[in-house]
């Protein structure tokens, strides 16, 4: 099957607090088929968030290529990567990253505006699909954690993306809700024809996927520095900020 996402010789380093360049990502090869669903096992410090940020175009690699549907993100300008991200990539964060001043519906509509097409009926349909038809005008703080995550799922699919990235999407949920949430993510991705690349360290989650990889096998870079760096840096993808 033709690859939607194709990574070759991808490298990314950060400057550590002591001034040394520290390689965080060194992935020789990785492929994801269109509409495929793959889970990556990524422990803390394995560079999973950095990898997802690179694929999403939030970070730019030092070298290598990231081909998304034939377009090499590594060769794109920041503005082009922003546009690609808005139109073709959905991102579900562990902390959901919903905009607090906006309703559930506005969170989705705003993503649509960045993608270039505002489709209010689709925004409502997505919220209806994730079971929040009666919570469209609620703000994140008025929603439970599970409901917030469902808004994040709906938002990730707002612009009919080709690829959905999920970074520990169930990390803030209990086991029962995590299973339900995972099922929902996989269903809506399938329904929308979007490929899913999910990163987690939860074995139960990982084992539900037919295809799974261990990020340590993909990423030849060693986990950097001390524990405090590893924990926070892995979450933020930015060692410099952690050191502050």
């Amino acid at each position, binding site marked *: 099957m033709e690859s939607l996402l194709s990574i070759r010789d991808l490298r990314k380093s950060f400057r550590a607090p002591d001034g040394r360049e520290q390689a965080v990502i060194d992935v020789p090869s990785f492929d994801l088929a269109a509409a495929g669903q793959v889970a990556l096992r990524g422990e803390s410090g394995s560079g999973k968030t950095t990898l997802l940020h690179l694929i999403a175009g*939030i970070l730019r690699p030092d070298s290598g290529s990231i081909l998304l549907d034939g377009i090499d993100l590594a060769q794109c300008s920041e503005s082009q990567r*922003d*546009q690609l991200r808005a139109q073709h990539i959905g991102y579900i964060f562990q902390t959901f990253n919903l905009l607090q001043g906006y309703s559930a519906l506005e969170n989705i509509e*705003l993503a649509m505006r*960045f993608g270039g097409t505002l489709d209010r009926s689709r925004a409502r349909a997505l919220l209806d699909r994730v079971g929040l038809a009666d919570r469209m005008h609620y703000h994140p703080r008025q929603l439970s954690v599970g409901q917030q995550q469902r808004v994040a799922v709906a938002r990730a699919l707002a612009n009919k993306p080709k690829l959905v990235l999920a970074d520990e999407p169930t990390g803030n949920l209990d086991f029962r809700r995590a299973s339900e949430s995972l099922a929902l993510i996989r269903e809506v991705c399938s329904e929308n024809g979007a490929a899913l690349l999910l990163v987690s360290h939860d074995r139960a989650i990982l084992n539900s996927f037919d295809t799974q990889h261990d990020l340590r096998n993909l990423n030849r870079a060693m986990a950097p520095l001390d524990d405090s760096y590893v924990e926070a840096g892995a979450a*933020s993808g930015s060692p410099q900020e952690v050191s502050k």
Partner: protein
Amino acid sequence: MSSSFASPLSAIALIVRRSLRQHALSSLVTIVSVALAAGLLMSVFSIKQQTHNAFTSGATGFDAVLGARGSQLQLVLNSVFHLETSPGNIPYSSYLAIKRDPRVRWAIPYAVGDNYKGYRVVGTTEEFYDRYTYGDEQKLAFEGSGRMFREAYGEAVVGSMAAQATGLTYGSTFNTFHGLNFDEKAQHSTEFIVTGILKPTGTPIDRVVWIPLEGYYRMGGHEPRDKKTGKIIEIKPGVAIPDEYKEVSAVMLKLRSGGSGASLDVEMNQQGNIRTLAWPIGKVMADLFYKIAWANQVLEFVAYLVAIVAGAAILASIYNTMNERRREFAILRALGAKRSVVFSAIVAESATIAALGSLLGYVVYGVLISVAASIVRAKAGVVLDVTAYHEALRLTPIGMTLLGALVGIVPAWKAYSTDVATNLVPTS
């Protein structure tokens, strides 16, 4: 309906709306401060223009004033605007002479020196009512069944503002007070009865109590004197006062043409040295405004400073939210917002605060110009046109909005520079 242009704009509009709502209190305070600045700026320029126009447009109903030798400005302020003391009197014969002058369409004598409860009492002739026009050649009119005083009687007519302020109505009787400032002890014994209240004219005559010139001469303290001996001429009731004993404070003139004014100006002011002709009245007042132009410049400078302070308030109010909004910007960027969109959203937010403040500034302007108009009306009888257009009414909102956008660049740059990956994680 994909549109690569409209959607970012609508996104920016939504971001601005939500931010204003999230920071409602600080936004409101800033909007009010901008409104005060915009209102002040518009008022300073508009009031300056309106005041200048009101005092120099010549809408006072006269072309020139003839009076005693002295300052033209003092003569105009005293006789036209009823504000200053009289520079002195001229012989009644001067009035008769100028009245006969072919260059003069009509001439009306004024005798000043009394007041009623602080409002000027002016002695004049019945001709004043027949001849005087104001504004667009409008003639004087009375409220209700009022009529002009008769010169041989102790009658009076009252300007609209003076009537309102003093309580004089049709049929009221009153005694005038000597001097231009109200002093209860200086009451004249002569009693006048009000025969009419003039309808408002929007000119200084609204602030005047009008009595017959003859009545003025017959009041104690105003009796004519023999110029050689200085003795008071005895005036008997029913017997006309000889003209040679009478004096007037000023003669109000309507001229036949501009050329008439020019030749009279040469004759009275340059060749003669007994009388002063204030002509044209608008120019005399314009000279006054020219002399006090520095005061206007100070006011304008203060208004500009207030506007700059308002701009700084916008900058501070938005800049102070930047730290707490770093994650919001990172999320927006992660959703695909370009740096330019985030930058534009902050500039637009700043400009919106300034624009909303400027709109509210029209209310402030309305209040300020209304207050200013009522003060000028009360003090000088001159009506400011509060609805008149001034360029400042258009340029101030535009300028304030541009200033808002300009100061918004500072916090916008901070938003523009927000690192996405670093700020996507929650901060405790």
